[in-house]
C-alpha cells in the first residue's frame, strides 16, 4: 500500500523529557488511520511532527525523519509543508470573521483574488463537509455564531481550501454533541475518497467505526499498528488488548 506520510525513528523531547520515543510508522494514502492511546501518551506531539508545527514550540528536540510522498519533509519550505498537511484541532476555532472570509483567508493569502473563483472555492469546500445547503444564505454571518458541530465543519472546510494531501484531526469530536459527531464522521468517510486522513481520538468506538488502519501508542512508544479490523478483533500485544478493554481511561 502506498503511503502519504512515513515517519522513521521519530523521537521528540521537551526539556529532556521524552514525549515520543523512536516511533516509525506509515500512513496509507486515501485511508483513515487512527492514532489511539491513553491520555498523555504523545499522540498530539506525534501529530505536531507530521505538519512541522512542532518547530513553533520552544525548548523542543526532534530526531528522526518525516517523509511526505517519499521525500523528506524537512527539505520543503515550512509553509509548503504545512499547506500540504492540514490540521483541525480539538476545539473548533474559526477566525473571528464571516464564514466566507474564513474560507477565503488562505486562498487570498496565496494570491487568489478572483471573485468568481473564490466563490467556487467556498461553495465546493462547504459542500465537501455537507454544510453548503445548510448555511448558504448565512455566508456573511460571523463564523462564531454557528453551533459547535457547524464550526468544526467550517474548520475542516477551511483546512481543505489550501488543497492539502493529508488532513490531520486532533480529537475533532471531543467538544461536540452526539448528533454533530455523527455528521462529522459521515463527512470524514466522504473525504477519504480524496484525502489521506489521520485522526487522533480517545474514543475507541469512533476509531472502530472510522479507521482502516490503527496505530496504538503508549508512553511515547509505538506498541502495535496494523489493519483496523485485525487490531480491534485480535490484537497481538496484551497491552493493546487491555487498552481496548477499557483498562486505562
Amino acid at each position: 500500500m502506498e503511503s502519504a506520510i512515513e515517519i522513521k525513528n521519530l523521537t521528540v523531547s521537551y526539556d529532556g523529557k521524552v514525549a515520543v520515543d523512536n516511533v516509525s510508522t506509515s500512513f496509507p494514502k486515501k485511508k483513515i488511520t487512527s492514532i489511539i492511546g491513553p491520555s498523555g501518551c504523545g499522540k498530539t506531539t506525534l501529530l505536531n511532527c507530521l505538519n512541522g508545527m512542532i518547530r513553533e514550540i520552544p525548548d523542543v528536540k526532534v530526531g528522526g525523519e518525516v517523509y511526505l510522498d517519499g521525500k523528506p519533509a524537512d527539505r520543503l519550505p515550512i509553509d509548503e509543508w504545512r499547506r500540504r498537511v492540514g490540521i483541525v484541532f480539538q476545539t473548533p476555532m474559526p477566525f473571528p470573521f464571516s464564514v466566507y472570509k474564513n474560507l477565503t483567508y488562505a486562498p487570498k493569502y496565496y494570491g487568489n483574488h478572483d471573485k468568481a473563483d473564490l466563490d467556487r472555492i467556498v461553495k465546493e469546500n462547504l459542500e465537501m463537509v455537507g454544510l453548503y445547503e445548510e448555511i448558504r444564505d448565512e455566508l456573511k454571518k460571523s463564523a462564531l455564531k454557528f453551533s459547535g458541530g457547524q464550526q468544526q465543519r467550517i474548520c475542516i472546510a477551511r483546512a481543505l481550501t489550501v488543497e492539502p494531501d493529508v488532513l490531520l484531526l486532533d480529537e475533532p469530536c471531543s467538544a461536540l454533541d452526539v448528533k454533530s459527531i455523527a455528521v462529522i464522521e459521515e463527512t470524514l468517510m466522504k473525504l477519504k475518497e480524496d484525502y489521506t486522513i489521520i485522526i487522533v481520538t480517545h474514543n475507541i468506538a469512533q476509531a472502530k467505526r472510522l479507521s482502516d488502519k490503527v496505530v496504538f501508542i503508549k508512553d511515547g512508544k509505538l506498541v502495535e499498528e496494523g489493519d483496523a479490523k485485525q487490531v480491534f478483533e485480535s490484537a497481538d500485544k496484551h497491552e493493546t488488548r487491555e487498552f481496548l478493554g477499557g483498562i486505562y481511561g
Partner: protein
Amino acid sequence: MRIKGALIRIWAYAGIITVSAAIVFLFVFVFIKGASTISWDFLSQSPSGAVLGEEGGILPAITGSLAFTLTAVVIGAIPAIATALYLVFYCKSSKSEQVIHLVIQCIAGIPSIVLGLFSYSLFVRDLNFGRCILSSGIALGVMILPFIEVRAEKTFREMNMTMIQSAYALGCTKSHTILTVVLPACRGELFSGIILGGCYAMGATAPMIFTGAVAYAANPTSIMKPAMALPLHLYLLVAQGTTSLDMAYGTAFVMMAVILISNALVTIYARRRQRAWNQQ
C-alpha cells in the same frame, strides 16, 4: 469561632461601602462645584484676568492636553505593542525575555517625576529642544509604555493558540497571521489599553511640569513649542491662590468628565465584545 466569621463579614461590608462612598463623593463633589462654571465661553476661550485664569476659559489647556496625550500615545504605544508582539510570537530565548521584562519593570518602577527630571535635563537642556510638547511627550510616553506593554502582552498570551495555529497550519507566515488574525482579534483590548494609557498620560502633571507645560500659551501648533495642559492649569490656579476657586472646580470638572467618558467607553466596548464571544 463564629464571631471571627461575623467580624470578617462586617469588614467586607464596611470596606465596600467606604470605597463606594469615596468614589461617589469625589465625582459628585467636583461635578456639583464645577457645574456652575461650565459654559460654552469657559470651554472656548483663553484664560485671562489679573491672576491668569481668574477669568476667561480653558480652551488652550484642553487642546494642549490633547496634544500632550497624543504625542505620549504615539511615542509609548507603538514600541509597547511591537515589544509585546516580539516577546510573544518571536522571542525564543527565555533569557532575553527575562532581561526585557526586567527593564520594563524597572521603568514602571521609576517615579514619574524622575522621568520628568530625565527628560528635562536631556531634552530641554542638553539637546536644546527647550520646553516643548515633544520633551513632555517623551517623558509621558516612557511612563505609559510599561502600562500598555503589560496589557498588550497579556492579551496576546491569552489569545487562543488554536486560532493562531490554524493560520500557521494553512501555511501562512507569522507576519501574515499577526496582521490578519492576531491584531484584529485583539483590537478591542489594545484599544482600551491605549485609551486608559492616554488617560493616565493626560492626568499626569509631574513629568510635564518643567518639560513642556506652561502657565500660558496659545493653542498648540507644533510639537516643538510649549503648550498649556489641564492638570498644570489646575495646579497653578490652586497654587497662585486666586480669589475664587470656581475656575479650578471647572477645570477639574472637565478632567473628571473625560475620565468618566473614556472609562465608560472602554467598559461598554468590553461588554459588547464579551457578549459577542458568549453568543458563539
